[in-house]
């Protein structure tokens, strides 16, 4: 045991296949194709030629350029970032907790974000701190506080020896935060509609500000998870075995959970608590390609991004010029698709 301190055995990790290039290419293609559909389709008809002109900086009708650059393009980019982040965070949570039902909201991130946003909307409507609207800031703080609370609680109760303790602490924190959120929502009926549309997801209003707000977090968070993809593979074989390889399970878990939580809190802060992406995208990748995190992490990022942009395209066109909340679409489109994938692959891959 003395010889192996920090490094995992390369022998062990090479047992799982790495990312097949064809799937990597397919993921990139999916991102490009979905973004293409996202910018071409919208409630206001703009010809593909004009969209391409606008993209390459050519002369377009100023009204159309305004709609494309101020509204449609940032919404597509934000959709890519939010979808990719939620899917990769879901994959990370499933990895560290070795639980297929884990999603980025497992430790209370959504409940915390919803509480923060509800408080900000009802108590301090329309206020900004250094030019940033207070609602995403409060949502971010709420998400981070909930997960930190769950972590501390899980640690004091079980010493983090068991995943179950941490997950149950997360469930308790989420229930507690949800109850406060509902109490505040109930007592502030004048803002109930805004709270409601926040919870169902709002890529609607964020614009480029939202993009710039989340971009650093997504890069940092997805980057850290990507660097830990081999360690997530090592965790898959079991905690005792991993520890015997000299890997500190608790340290890996803490780093990955912190990274995934920061990214989730940031995208939830601008996009609302969009459901289901963090569950179905990583599992679809596992079913179709393989369960190694060297496959699941990068492909979840790419396919999550593509999936959310497509879902948002449906959300803003299906009842145009009205909108359907995106959270409704992700589950409505995602659930049947996921069932089809599950039926047509080997359940063993789960």
């Amino acid at each position, binding site marked *: 045991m003395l010889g192996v301190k920090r490094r995992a055995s390369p022998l062990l990790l090479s047992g799982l296949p790495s990312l097949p290039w064809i799937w990597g290419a397919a993921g990139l293609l999916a991102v490009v194709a979905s973004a293409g559909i996202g910018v071409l389709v919208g409630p206001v008809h703009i010809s593909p030629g004009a969209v391409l002109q606008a993209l390459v900086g050519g002369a377009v009708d100023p009204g159309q350029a305004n709609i494309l650059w101020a509204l449609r393009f940032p919404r597509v980019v934000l959709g890519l970032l939010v979808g990719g982040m939620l899917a990769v965070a879901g994959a990370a949570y499933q990895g560290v907790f070795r639980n297929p039902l884990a999603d980025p909201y497992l430790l209370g991130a959504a409940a915390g974000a919803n509480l923060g946003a509800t408080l900000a*909307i009802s108590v301090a409507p329309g206020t900004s701190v250094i030019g940033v609207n207070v609602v995403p800031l409060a949502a971010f703080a709420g998400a981070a506080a909930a997960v930190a609370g769950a972590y501390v609680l899980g640690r004091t109760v079980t010493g983090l020896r068991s995943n179950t303790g941490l997950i149950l602490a997360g469930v308790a924190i989420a229930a507690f935060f949800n109850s406060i959120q509902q109490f505040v929502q109930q007592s502030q009926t004048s803002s109930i509609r805004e709270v409601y549309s926040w919870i169902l997801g709002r890529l609607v*209003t964020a614009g480029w500000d939202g993009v710039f707000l989340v971009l650093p977090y997504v890069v940092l968070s997805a980057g850290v998870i990507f660097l830990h993809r081999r360690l997530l593979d090592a965790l898959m074989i079991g905690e005792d075995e991993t520890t015997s390889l000299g890997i500190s399970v608790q340290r890996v878990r803490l780093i990955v959970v912190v990274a995934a939580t920061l990214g989730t809190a940031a995208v939830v802060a601008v996009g609302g608590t969009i459901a289901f992406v963090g569950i179905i995208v990583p599992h679809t990748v596992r079913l179709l390609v393989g369960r190694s995190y060297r496959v699941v992490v990068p492909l979840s990022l790419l396919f999550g991004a593509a999936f959310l942009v497509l879902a948002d395209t449906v959300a803003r066109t299906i009842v145009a*010029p*009205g909108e359907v909340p995106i959270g409704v679409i992700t589950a409505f489109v995602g659930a049947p698709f996921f069932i089809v994938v599950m039926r047509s692959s080997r359940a063993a891959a789960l």
Partner: protein
Amino acid sequence: MQTHKQLAGAKPAARFGTVVVAALFGLTSCGGGQSSPPASAHFPVTITQSNGATVTVTHQPRHIVSLSPTGTEMLFAIGAGSQVIAVDDQSNYPASAPKTKLSGFQPNIEAIAAYQPDLVVASDDVGGIVRGMQALSIPILIEPAAKTLDDSYVQLKQLGTATGHPAGADGVVARMRSDIDSFVRSVSKPARQLRVYHELDNTYYSVTSATFIGQVYKLLGLSNIADAASAAAPDYPQLSAEYIVAANPDLIVLADTKCCQQDLNSVAARPGWAVIKAVRSGQVVGVDDDIASRWGPRVIDFMKAVAPHVQQLEKAA
């Protein structure tokens, strides 16, 4: 058609018959043309509600509980304010209304009963409130969100009948009719139809012409951009920002000045919105969220805020 009879204060079975007889007598005597009866002589009265249910009020109520902000505004407008002993936590107008912690969204039947009301007014039958009040033999009037001005007039008259102020209610209705007429006459039909966007919150929920406030825009001769989204929701659809910008409304009415602190500046700062006609010409009107979401007599105040902008736009056109 469902029918339920509510008999206030009819506790012993023996009094039941008397009350029914009195009710019949009351109904016949109404057409009898008695000379200047005191208010209480109208009672008992039976009111048929929009859902077909009938409500009987045996004597003039002196302890009214209102769980509807619009109901509260109507009761005070028709002169029944002094009979109101408690209103819900959202009833913030008039200021003299006896505001309590009672909720119309999550009604607590025990808490309402503790006021020993002889009439309850609510906008929705939620939380089993109608059954609860029936069990306590307390008459309850449900006056739901009006879809037209006529709905609103009917509700005012029902409340007038139920509280012993039919003349007060008729007066309010007559005043509303004449005020609305003069507003409608003050705006001429423009050659080019002006477009309006009414905003409920800053995620672009709006109202179609199938709503109370939508009817008011129709009366003012405006075309409502939310009508195109009736497929999304017939009354309160959420609109795409792209569509709002492309529809290029001449007038924007913000009914989210209180909930979301919106004004001309915040609207102009939204990505892509600066090019909209209403924003460029400054025709962005902030209205009180409450006035714009209630269907009581203060619809006049709403028209007073909006009509001058329509006149300005017509002059410019």
